[in-house]
């Protein structure tokens, strides 16, 4: 496989393994510390045991302007239970002790800024593999990306449906971990319909990056995941997992299994 002197990242390993299994990776989002520490840890463990390949761990924020009501609700519950960024990193470290899959930290810029120049070491020490900062476009990304990448933590870039062709190369190239293609205009938790425009957009992104491309925003049901799987390296599910998790870890595990089963590319099923 590698043979190079650089160790391959957990993220690269997982996407390569999924490719070998002829399926898209399942990127699962849950808000950390929702509704409290112990229940959150139980949910996260249930999710990774049921088949989440890449865990996207959300940092609770008081003013999540890019998120819909489901994620807002999760963040409000977590903050009411006393969530802090230090608490999120401690939770990640505990999960990391029993699981070797990649963890991507999803955050708004302001909580991360408070970590100062030590941000890279803090994230790396907690076992975080990459960071996605929703309100930090590439123009402003260097102020956090530089210290993060210096510590060996990857950067996830967002491409939106509104990103024009002229802007696409720079946005796509700014990703060192993977590209997160936002499937629809709007906030998290809306409902996605897959169309030719989306497929064409994914092709355009791939023309500018060799990094894996995952699609999210609006993926709620196995049928949507199955329809996306042939076109993408990963499918991101968030709000639907939070809703399932509110019924307990078993309901969450069932939802994860159902979506995961749908990600095998039709006609290419691995043995």
């Amino acid at each position, binding site marked *: 496989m590698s043979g190079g002197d650089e160790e391959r990242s957990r993220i690269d390993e997982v996407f390569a393994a999924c490719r070998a299994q002829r399926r898209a990776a399942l990127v699962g989002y849950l808000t950390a510390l929702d509704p409290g520490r112990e229940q959150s840890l139980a949910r996260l463990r249930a999710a990774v045991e049921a088949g989440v390949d890449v865990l996207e761990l959300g940092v609770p924020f*008081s003013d999540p302007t890019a998120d819909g009501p489901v994620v807002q609700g999760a963040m409000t519950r977590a903050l009411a239970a006393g969530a802090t960024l230090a608490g999120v990193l401690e939770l990640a470290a505990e999960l990391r002790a029993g699981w070797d899959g990649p963890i991507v930290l999803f955050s708004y810029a*302001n*909580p991360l800024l*408070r970590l100062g120049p030590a941000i890279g070491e803090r994230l790396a020490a907690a076992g975080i593999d990459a960071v996605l900062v929703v309100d930090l*476009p590439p123009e402003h990304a260097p102020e956090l990306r530089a210290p993060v990448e210096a510590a060996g933590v990857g950067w996830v870039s967002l491409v939106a449906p509104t990103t024009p062709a002229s802007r696409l190369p720079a946005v796509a190239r700014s990703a060192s971990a993977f590209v997160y293609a936002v499937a629809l205009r709007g906030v998290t938790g809306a409902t996605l319909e897959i169309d030719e425009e989306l497929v064409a957009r994914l092709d355009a992104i791939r023309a500018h990056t060799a990094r894996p491309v995952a699609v999210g925003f609006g993926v709620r049901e196995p049928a949507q995941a199955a329809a996306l799987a042939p076109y993408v390296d990963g499918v991101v599910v968030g709000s639907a997992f939070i809703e399932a998790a509110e019924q307990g870890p078993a309901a969450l595990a069932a939802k994860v299994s159902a979506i995961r089963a749908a990600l095998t590319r039709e006609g290419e099923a691995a043995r």
Partner: protein
Amino acid sequence: MNDATDPSLEFGPYGGRYVAETLMPAVQALGEAWREAWPDEGFRAQYRRILAEYVGRPSPLTPAPRLAERIGAARVLLKREDLNHTGSHKINNCVGQVLLARRLGKTRIIAETGAGQHGVATATVCAYFGLPCVVYMGAVDVERQALNVFRMRLLGAQVVPVHAGSATLKDAINEALRDWVANVDSTHYLIGSVMGPDPYPTMVRELHRVIGEEARAQCLRLTGELPDVVVACVGGGSNAMGIFSGFLDDPGVALVGVEAAGEGLQGKHAATMSKGALGIYHGMRSLVLQDEDGQLQEAHSISAGLDYPGVGPEHAWLRHTGRARYLSVTDDEALEGLRLLSRTEGIIPALETAHAVAALRGLAQEDPSRTLLLNVSGRGDKDMHTVMARHDASGEEEQR
């Protein structure tokens, strides 16, 4: 794309475009359209014509001798933005931004509002141009500004109460941003203050620059000299930037912004300049009221229009450079200021403006020989319910 210093950080380390990628192209297009439209004489003429024919500009400059005598100042002058159509300075910005939205081919306008003055001004200009309008307003503000909610609905706007978070101005902005992300192709987000991502802080200041330019000329005509001190209240900071911009290049003119100290700086307040720290919030890098973990703190002020935990980036910069200084005034002092201007000059100011009124006495005491110019950003009709709730509802006062 440039990994070096970002030129959109227009105000030293403050400003920028900290928005989700989905909004980035819209914000860039708006910036380009603005920078093209504002120097365009045709655009400027249309804006000026509407300000004259519809808004009622220029607004007068009123000498306030009884107030000056009461507080021990040589002279007090009042810039009367309360006399604009809709009762505050807010409409200057709304006229300009709706003209720009039409130029961009947008067919729907959304806005946030705190006190309701920006919402009313937006609804008014949308009615004038026949554009659909949605105004987001915190549920707490819907309650305390019922009259303005009714006015907006009468003008044909849809008012959406926001129950999330503290249910005040910041939450209304969150919800407006979510609407914009979902409808960015058809919709212009008409931000009501000198805040948010570039170009808003610059654009909104320029659209209120008329306040400062008029006041400067009027003051020279009336007194033969410039004022010594220019005073305005600061929430997001639009009326203050408007009047300050007329005097920024006059080094002899002191600029003073007045924030809401709420129940006091040790308690619940909205004094971002005194107590805020550098942060990224609502699309900008500026001072923000936040805890040590980067979570926004709930602001408090008796005045809905000042009840905001952030502040426009140019104010942060003016404070940083020392060009302006910022004071804070409590709820109780503001109520006192409202009564003071009402009793001495027969002008009932908005509770926002009342904060700036309350700061005048201290400024007069620093040096009684100075001319103080106060921006009367809005009139107080909308606040009568709030004031009545805090005082004897009969309205009678102890005689002084």
